[in-house]
Every structure is written in structure tokens, then in C-alpha cells.
């Protein structure tokens, strides 16, 4: 069987390309594109050579993965050097990108926690309905379903830098509703939450503070990612020249 058409070869190529896409992310686009194209060419030529040499697809895949793994320290060194050069060329822009990455990670994490809480409450509701403890299709449960679906949509929007602004805005409603209604629903389903509601001093203040904190986080994220007005090309300041792709 031809190596180029075999599954092991394609799996190896996909893994190496994925690794290459990761270590070339966040650096100069031209330099990154050149490296990716060069690796793509190398992987293809390796397959052709293996076919001519009569190598088995599995052996070729192992060899390709071996070359990629042995090159990881060099790849990381190259990436580090590229990012350092980028930081030197545009220190403010580099710090802004770094801060943006941290903000994105924290907001997505918070959105995931809120969504996870919604899913957890829905699971408890479903199990209670199955057990016959509560009736199905209550207004609270339906609202929780809608808010959880909205939160999932919000996470999808947060995943892409272009739609992050919208994602943060969308997450405000689930941030308030899921926590408020989720705790309300758990009051009747969970002995722990019921005990906390009656036994913990300042429970009401704590839950309201939590809702306010989550809301502030999503509003602040939406402001952070507020779309900038388009600037006319002639008014845009000249960007620094692309740096070489050496390390």
C-alpha cells in the first residue's frame, strides 16, 4: 500500500502539523507561514521517499513522529526567540496580546464554571423528575434549560477572538440567571444547599455578591473586547518590518 495514501502516515502528518500550528502561533505571520509551508513540504517529500524506498506506512509514521519529537527542544527554542524578537519590536503590543490571552483564559474558565453549574442543576432536576420527586416541565427548569443553552452559545462565541465581545455580553444573562435560579432549584433538591440557606449566616449576601461578581466580570470582559472603530488605512501608523525567522 502506498505510504502517501495510508492512515498511519496521515495520522502522523496531522499530529506534526498540529504541533507546528501550535508553536508557530502568536509569532510574526510571515515567518510562521514560511515554517508551516516548509514542514508541509518536508512531510510530503518524506512520504514520497518512503514509498520509493519500499518502507511500510507504520515505519514511516514512526520515523516522522520521531523526527518531530527529537526536534521539540529546537522548535521551542525557535518559538521563544521569535516571541522575544516580537516583544522587542513592539513591547506594548506584545504585552497587550499577553494580557488579552490571560483575560480570555479567565473569562472562558468562568463561563465554563457557570455553564457547568447549569448542567449540574439540570442533571439534578432530571434525576428528581425520573424519581418522581418533582413534576416535569416547571417554569424554573425550562428557564434553566434556556439559560444553559445560552451559556453554551456564549462559550462558543468566546472561543473565537472575533466574537469574544458578543460572547461576554451573552454570558451576562446566564451568569445572573443560572446562579440565582440554580441555587433556588437546588434548595428543593439538595439537602446541603437547603442547610446552607438556613444555617449559613450571610448566605443571601454571599449569593448576591457572587452573582454581582460574575456580572461585573462579564461586563468588564465585554468592555475590554469592545470592537474598535475602523481606522482608515492611510492613518494607520507604519508597523515594524517583519523580523527574520532565525533563532
Amino acid at each position, binding site marked *: 500500500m502506498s505510504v502517501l495514501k495510508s492512515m498511519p502516515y496521515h495520522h502522523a502528518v496531522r499530529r506534526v502539523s498540529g504541533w507546528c500550528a501550535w508553536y508557530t502561533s502568536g509569532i510574526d505571520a510571515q515567518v510562521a507561514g514560511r515554517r508551516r509551508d*516548509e514542514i508541509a*513540504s518536508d512531510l510530503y517529500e518524506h512520504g514520497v521517499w518512503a514509498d520509493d524506498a519500499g518502507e511500510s506506512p507504520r515505519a514511516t509514521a514512526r520515523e516522522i513522529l520521531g523526527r518531530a519529537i527529537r*526536534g521539540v527542544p529546537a522548535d521551542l527554542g*525557535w518559538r521563544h526567540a521569535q516571541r522575544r524578537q516580537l516583544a522587542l519590536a513592539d513591547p506594548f503590543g506584545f504585552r497587550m496580546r499577553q494580557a488579552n490571552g490571560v483575560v480570555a483564559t479567565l473569562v472562558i474558565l468562568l463561563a465554563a464554571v457557570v455553564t457547568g453549574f447549569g448542567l449540574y442543576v439540570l442533571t439534578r432536576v432530571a434525576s428528581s423528575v425520573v424519581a418522581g420527586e418533582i413534576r416535569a416541565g416547571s417554569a424554573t427548569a425550562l428557564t434553566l434549560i434556556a439559560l444553559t443553552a445560552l451559556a453554551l452559545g456564549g462559550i462558543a462565541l468566546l472561543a473565537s477572538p472575533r466574537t469574544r465581545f458578543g460572547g461576554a455580553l451573552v454570558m451576562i444573562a446566564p451568569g445572573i440567571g443560572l446562579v440565582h435560579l440554580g441555587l433556588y432549584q437546588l434548595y428543593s433538591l439538595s439537602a446541603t444547599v437547603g442547610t446552607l440557606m438556613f444555617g449559613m449566616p450571610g448566605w443571601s449576601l454571599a449569593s448576591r455578591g457572587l452573582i454581582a461578581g460574575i456580572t461585573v466580570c462579564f461586563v468588564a470582559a465585554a468592555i475590554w473586547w469592545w470592537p474598535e472603530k475602523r481606522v482608515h488605512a492611510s492613518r494607520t501608523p507604519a508597523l515594524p518590518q517583519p523580523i527574520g*525567522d532565525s533563532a
Partner: protein
Amino acid sequence: MPRRRPGSLFPLEVDILDSGLTLQASDGSFYGFALAKQLAERDGTALTAHGTLYKALSRMTDSGLLESTWEDAAPAAVDGRPRRRLYTVTAEGSLALSRARVAELATATSIAAAPSSTSVSAVTTVSPTLSTPPRATLV
């Protein structure tokens, strides 16, 4: 990888220049995988790792030892393969290789000329490499 001293070449860079000149003599230029294959066949070792090879090639291109151009899209499209990045060894690269060889030879000769017993054992180790193009880390 150790830090480079000014004007010196890493052993891999010497190998790349040497194999690159061989490929260049027959094909006019060379590309990454052809070079990896040539290095493996010459030394009887595994193919050079992607990261190691392309990092060295880009570093050498930036320092003027190699020149690179992207192959025209047409021949690659006809063959149904990705475009190759074609390299050639520059005059500066050839000169750097010659200097590296001279420095290697000088190092090997000085070891051979030393009278101590340590040097005798060193000569035994070094001398087989003299039949192949000598390598040096200092130009």
C-alpha cells in the same frame, strides 16, 4: 545547543554546508528533506529532526551563509505536491566551510604533534575523521 562563538560554525552547520554544496553541484539548489536525506546517507544516521534542521537553515539564511527562494507554484502544481523552499550555499557559506575545514585540520594536526600519551590516544580517535571532510567548530 551550546552558544555560538563569533565567527564559528556549529557541527551541524558544517554538515549542512558540505552536503548542500554536494546537492547544489548536481541539482543547482537543495531543499530541506533532500538535505536531511543526504546527511543521513552520508553519516549513516537517522534523518535530522524537523526542528533542528529548519532552525539551523533559517539561522544560516539570516547570517548569509545560505540563500533561499520559494519554488515556482507551477512545477509543484504539476507534480501535485507542496512548494519547496530552495536553498543555495552563498560564497560566504563556501568560505566559512573552507575556514572550518582548515581550523579542524589544524586542531587535528596539533593534537597529533603533541608528545604526551593523552595526545596519542586522541590521535587514534581523531584520525579516522580525516579521511572524510574535516569538521570544525571554529572558523
